[in-house]
């Protein structure tokens, strides 16, 4: 239905809408009943859309990674008309493709005692008790269907000689439940979802828009009813209306400039939704991966992750003496010449029972600590050794090659160094973001009609994600959760509830998008988008990275607005809008990162505890471990935008744990 009140003052309208919602109550809509029955009961209670009516509904899906592609394909199969958008030249290139390790599922094919309950338990514990129990339980329940679905699509999972599926173990679990396809599980699962998507495209149920970037969401009468998109080849700005909008736009790791994300990954879609009234949850929960290849210089454009399986056999060390470390950094001494007594295998020393296999956050923080002490072994000052000499001595070079050959090759390609002869150098890097748009049990944000799935939402991983769980969540949301839950919203709101793109709400948003592009192109300053991005990334990494403290975060909150101000005064973007213009694309994304970074720091500052990937230096045990504060902080922080230059409002959704007992993690 068309809007009733149409005003030609777009900004005022947006502000008015948000301020009206200031008493917003976040209802997670978690169904009643025992945890194992919630999803079945809920599915039964969800309203259905009559099959004959499904073709009268339009759904927009933004993003074509595991979550987006699986959702678009599944919605198309159900009969909805889907429009899917991605910035890449093919949906198959979304960054899900880069996941190496595997996908978890509670199949219990190994007969080792796995169950949906155990996967649920491990995930809640691994998330350091900051995720929602009901969502995680559902994730564990549907995990088994994902493997069936992918196998039926022809995903060439690793198999045993008997022809059945193989499994491997992964961090944070004592059962073997990870399915994999060589070192490229992400690519194979994405190709599976992409093939289903292609089928729907060929059937005319999904209209695919590649090289198309969503620049804003359109809200009509408080409901998300469309998006405004820039064609990245021609610069054309177009409006698209729908009955519902699904954001499957991934994470925001690139706010740090350097991360393991792809170059194009950005926060724009989620952040624009936030500015239109959707709450952003737990933005400060970011995951740092300990085994990445260190930065080699200022030219660095991204970081490369190596599977953490390397820590099964590699030993992490730095010299005990920082004078020796300095000599290594200057190239005066070689690592192999340093006697064992002069080496500090710091993880083995501090965590005798877990050793090099402590969780990601612990391994990362300790690497930072020894580097901060001046004991780094690479010239940038940011790197420690991961040494396979003992493993080679113990089991021979061939066995090491069989296990890790592809990783050693990749390492050599990038660094030029042979890790069979010299220890690898590694350093932690930003890898995944647990925070995201706030969603209820139906994966709908507080803005009716706006859904967020995959890494773009916040709900399943708490403050820390376990390995091989990102692929699981993306596909769970896209194949098995959203296709049901979106039906409820559509059925409730009816077929007529789709405005025309001629509605003033659409033209207003388009005007704003165009005026912003014009501004970016006409500042005519001195600095490139990359230079601003790099500077922001450094502030974020130093002050809101692996370890955070009040002073640093407050400093970042002073620095970021200054940098943002300079951006809008001194940016240089050559070229025009009406053509392929990569500087312009980047400038728009950096502009949003410059606002979003501030929100992250604000969130990190208010969370006066350490949990999962969020380590506040003021809150640690005497042994230097993360110290949670369950009494005061077992909540989801959900931020509501209150208008330009206004401080966003913090809403708290309390987390209640009926099933899992909260304990302090210990890996000593």
């Amino acid at each position, binding site marked *: 239905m068309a809007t009733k009140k149409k005003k030609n003052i777009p900004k005022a309208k947006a502000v008015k809408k948000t301020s009206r919602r200031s008493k917003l109550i976040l209802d997670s809509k978690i169904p009643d009943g025992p945890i194992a029955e919630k999803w079945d009961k809920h599915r039964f209670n969800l309203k259905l859309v009559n099959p004959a009516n499904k073709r009268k509904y339009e759904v927009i899906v933004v993003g074509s990674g595991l979550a987006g592609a699986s959702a678009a394909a599944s919605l198309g199969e159900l009969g909805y008309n889907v429009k899917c958008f991605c910035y890449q030249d093919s949906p198959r290139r979304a960054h899900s493709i880069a996941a190496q390790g595997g996908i978890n599922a509670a199949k219990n094919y190994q007969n080792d005692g796995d169950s949906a309950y155990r996967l649920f338990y491990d995930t809640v514990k691994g998330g350091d008790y900051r995720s929602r129990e009901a969502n995680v339980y559902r994730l564990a329940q549907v995990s088994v269907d994902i493997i069936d679905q992918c196998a039926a699509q022809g995903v060439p999972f690793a198999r045993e000689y008997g022809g059945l599926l193989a499994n491997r173990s992964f961090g944070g679990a004592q059962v073997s439940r990870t399915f994999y396809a060589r070192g*490229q599980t992400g*690519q194979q699962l994405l190709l599976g979802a*992409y093939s289903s998507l292609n089928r729907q495209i060929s059937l005319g149920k999904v209209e695919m828009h590649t090289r198309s970037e969503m620049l804003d969401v359109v809200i009509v009468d408080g409901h998300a009813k469309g998006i405004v998109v820039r064609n990245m080849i021609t610069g054309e700005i177009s409006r698209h209306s729908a009955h519902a909008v699904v954001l499957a736009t991934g994470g925001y790791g690139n706010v740090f400039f350097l991360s393991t994300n792809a170059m194009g990954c950005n926060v724009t879609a989620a952040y624009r939704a936030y500015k239109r009234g959707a709450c952003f949850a737990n933005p400060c929960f970011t995951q740092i991966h300990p085994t990445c290849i260190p930065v080699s210089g200022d030219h*660095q454009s991204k970081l490369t992750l190596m599977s953490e399986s390397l820590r099964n056999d590699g030993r992490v060390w730095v010299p005990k003496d920082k004078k020796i470390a300095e000599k290594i950094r200057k190239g005066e001494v070689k690592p192999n010449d340093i006697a064992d007594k002069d080496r500090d295998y710091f993880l083995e020393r501090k965590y005798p029972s877990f050793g090099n296999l402590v969780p990601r956050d612990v391994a990362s923080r300790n690497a930072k600590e020894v580097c901060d002490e001046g004991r780094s072994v690479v010239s940038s000052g940011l790197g420690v050794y991961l040494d396979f000499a003992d493993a080679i001595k113990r089991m021979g070079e061939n066995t090491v090659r069989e296990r890790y050959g592809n990783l050693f090759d990749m390492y050599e390609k990038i660094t030029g160094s042979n890790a069979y002869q010299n220890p690898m150098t590694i350093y932690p890097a930003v890898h995944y973001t647990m925070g995201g748009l706030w969603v209820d049990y139906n994966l709908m944000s507080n803005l009716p009609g706006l859904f967020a799935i995959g890494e773009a939402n916040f709900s399943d991983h708490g403050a820390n994600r376990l390995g091989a769980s990102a692929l699981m969540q993306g596909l769970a949301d896209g194949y098995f959760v959203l296709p049901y839950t979106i039906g409820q919203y559509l059925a409730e709101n009816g077929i007529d509830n789709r405005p025309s793109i001629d509605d003033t709400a659409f033209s207003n948003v388009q005007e704003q998008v165009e005026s912003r592009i014009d501004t970016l192109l006409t500042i005519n300053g001195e600095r490139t988008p990359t230079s601003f991005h790099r500077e922001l990334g450094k502030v974020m990494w130093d002050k809101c990275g692996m370890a955070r403290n009040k002073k640093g975060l407050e400093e970042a909150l002073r620095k970021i607005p200054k940098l943002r101000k300079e951006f809008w005064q001194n940016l240089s973007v050559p070229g025009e809008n009406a053509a392929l213009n990569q500087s312009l694309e980047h400038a728009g994304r950096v502009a949003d990162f410059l606002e979003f970074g501030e929100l992250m720091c604000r969130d990190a500052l208010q969370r006066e505890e350490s949990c999962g990937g969020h380590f506040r230096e003021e809150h640690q045990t005497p042994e230097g471990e993360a110290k949670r504060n369950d009494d005061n902080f077992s909540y989801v922080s959900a931020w509501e935008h209150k208008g330009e230059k206004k401080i966003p409002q913090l809403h708290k959704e309390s987390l209640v744990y009926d099933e899992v007992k909260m304990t302090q993690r210990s890996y000593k």
Partner: protein
Amino acid sequence: MNLKLRVWRQDNAEEAGGFEEYEALDISPDMSFLEMLDVVNEDIIADGEEPIAFDSDCREGICGTCSMVINGVPHGGQQGTTACQLHMRHFSDGDTIVIEPWRATAFPVHRDLIVDRTSFERIQQAGGFISVRTGSVPDANATPVPKEDSDLAMDAAQCIGCGACVAACKNASAMLFVAAKVSHLSLMPQGQPERTRRAFSMVNQMDEEGFGNCTVTGSCEAVCPKEISLDFIARMNREYGRALLKKGCS
């Protein structure tokens, strides 16, 4: 090190393009090839000019976005390596490097080094899938797959769809790409019901897109960053022949 670049610049598919020369100064051997281009682009922007447009995304050799011919060889000629994983230590001070887009009728240039590969999309939409609806599938272990078949399917499935095979081929043939896709699914038991239809539709679509024919020179295999074997082309030809016979009989 200091290098000279000769880079193909072209505003769009309609305009004629040409080579422009750039200096790449103070290049560190630790840079990746694309980071070297980033550095050059920063200087170009500082001069108020438009930077060299090129595609890249994951920069770890798996998304298949990056696509450029370096000194006459797609991805630069380091075996099993995409342009984004090629590093400057393989070049020497004073080198002149020639950089061009993929060249093929079926890959029109969007701008500079960026080409339109939607022809690959249409080939896959024509039949590169197994028709299963979400949820309507048997238990994953209900269909055992011999490990050898699954491993071979995986060899084919590694294709990242970058298009280097087309760029290297004197006929601009897409046979290695299509062969990898057809072989992957036809090797799996799940892919059998649509085996005939798939081979037929995908090969026909490939021909319609204007890709050339295969004369088995093997340049595609030589430049493939995932080292997809030429054997798969033989397999696809067999699949297509089989499909033709089946069609003829029905």
